[in-house]
């Protein structure tokens, strides 16, 4: 036999017992061809996407069936809606939102991502129209997602965009606000929602793949019981290699069937609320008995470095966010530790320095006001432009008090309402304008 029984059983165990799967195959497709100056003509042109989506769904289902690999979601990333709304109205934006959502529903695409805008330093008319309409766009759809890039190393950090963003998310129910994010340095090829959009510089259509796999890493650590940090690093690196290879295989095969480019695998370890599929669980397997305890950041840094080194070997092209996700609700152990008080906002902000999520899937109580949320987002985005990395914030304003939780079900899990510090920050967050780009900018020339 070309493979030993141990090798075969290892793959079997990863796929059947350790929750290894493909989190998403994301078709990233150019839709700018549909810009037509009026709504009717735009929608008419967008209709041609249907054929592409049909081929995509068929290709993903065939590949999943042939290889016996679970592909949890199919997603489509479209060109940022901002470009459409430069010459169309806010009402037109909402019509396009519903049209895209309808297409996704018709073809059984889990998410269509790209009701997005770039406002790192200021607003074009199109960006402003996106920001002013995204709450209504999400409230009237189920599969559409929103990303506002409000900061970049090159352009700075736009406080005005944060304020407008917070105004919008405060008028959205959790089912909508969980589909929106505000980011720094968003990459053009993310397979994850809500950050996914068909970025500038991409070919007409590409496939980007997101893998799962926290359970594989956690089990590998528990089985090998490493005695030194180098052994620990090596165990993670080897497991990450295998996880990423699966993404490479599936991405290549789906792209081949569609006759388009396979662009990237996102190395990110994406948790899910399922037991044994938790990034916090990995940190605890490394010997931090409760995620959030001192040493958690160092442990996450070791994990991240090993994942990147193993993953880089496994794929011909790395893309997307490629870090570790530490969403609170989508990770059952994180949610538990947040409820217990071991993980608070400053823990998440500190961890953001070595991973790529920022503050993700955390609820805030509306009773604590908008200003503190603006301050929280500014903290994370400032970290993004200072460290020159991708970070984002996905907050879910709710009526419930801090310390409680809201169950969104499915992949989204239990959203914990975390307490914001009871400190008045209105003087700082009411300052107008944008933060100029940092010295990091000058390193780029």
């Amino acid at each position, binding site marked *: *036999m*070309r*493979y030993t*029984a*141990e*090798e*075969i*059983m*290892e*793959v*079997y*165990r*990863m*796929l*059947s017992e350790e929750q290894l799967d493909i989190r998403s195959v994301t078709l990233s497709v150019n839709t700018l061809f549909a810009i037509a100056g009026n709504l009717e003509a735009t929608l008419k042109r967008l209709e041609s996407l249907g054929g592409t989506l049909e081929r995509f769904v068929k290709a993903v289902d065939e590949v999943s*069936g*042939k*290889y*016996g*690999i679970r592909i949890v979601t199919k997603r489509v990333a479209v060109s940022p809606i901002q470009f459409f709304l430069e010459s169309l109205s806010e009402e037109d934006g909402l019509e396009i939102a519903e049209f895209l959502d309808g297409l996704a529903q018709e073809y059984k695409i889990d998410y269509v991502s790209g009701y997005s805008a770039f406002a790192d330093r200021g607003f074009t008319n199109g960006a402003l129209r996106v920001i002013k309409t995204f709450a209504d766009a999400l409230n009237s759809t189920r599969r559409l997602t929103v990303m506002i890039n409000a900061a970049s190393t090159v352009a700075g950090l736009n406080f005005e965009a944060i304020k407008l963003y917070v105004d919008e998310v405060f008028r959205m129910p959790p089912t909508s606000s969980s589909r929106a994010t505000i980011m720094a340095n968003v990459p053009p090829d993310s397979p994850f929602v809500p950050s996914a959009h068909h970025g500038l510089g991409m070919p007409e259509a590409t496939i980007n793949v997101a893998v799962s796999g926290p359970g594989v890493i956690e089990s590998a650590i528990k089985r090998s019981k490493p005695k030194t940090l180098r052994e620990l690093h090596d165990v993670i690196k080897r497991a990450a*290699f*295998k996880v990423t*290879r*699966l993404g*490479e*295989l599936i991405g290549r095969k789906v792209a081949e069937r569609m006759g388009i480019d396979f662009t990237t695998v996102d190395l990110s370890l994406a948790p899910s609320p399922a037991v044994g599929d938790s990034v916090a669980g990995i940190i605890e397997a490394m010997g931090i008995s409760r995620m959030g305890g001192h040493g958690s950041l160092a442990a996450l840094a070791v994990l991240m470095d090993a994942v990147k080194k193993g993953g880089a*070997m496994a794929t011909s092209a790395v893309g997307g966010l490629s870090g570790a996700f530490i969403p609170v609700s989508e990770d059952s152990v994180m949610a538990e530790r947040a409820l217990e008080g071991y993980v608070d906002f400053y823990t998440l902000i500190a961890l953001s320095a070595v991973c790529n999520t920022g503050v993700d899937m955390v609820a805030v109580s509306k009773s604590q006001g908008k200003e503190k949320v603006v301050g929280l987002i500014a903290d994370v985005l400032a970290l993004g432009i200072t460290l020159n990395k991708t970070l984002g914030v996905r907050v879910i304003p709710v009526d419930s008090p801090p310390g409680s939780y809201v169950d969104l079900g499915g992949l989204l899990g239990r959203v914990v309402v975390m307490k914001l510090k009871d400190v008045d920050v209105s003087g700082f967050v009411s300052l107008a304008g944008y933060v100029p780009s940092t010295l990091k900018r000058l390193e780029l020339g």
Partner: protein
Amino acid sequence: MIVVVGADKPGIVAGIASKLAENNANIIDISQTVVRGIFAMVMVVDISQCKVSLAELRRQLQEKGKELGVEVQAYHEEVFRYMERV
């Protein structure tokens, strides 16, 4: 590549093999191993002349597995080539 996991008892190999034969899938290699005290059988099967797709073959084998009280998984060889070879 077919993996069968479950309690060892008579008839498992025969049950799976007959289902493969029905579909014209040819067993190339077969080995047995024990994982955490549980019987596991690994088969390498040539499906180039198989009457049905791998997805359908997997469905039929899993149905048979249920009758036999074992778990059956079927993966394409490329999965192992990608994950177990640099």
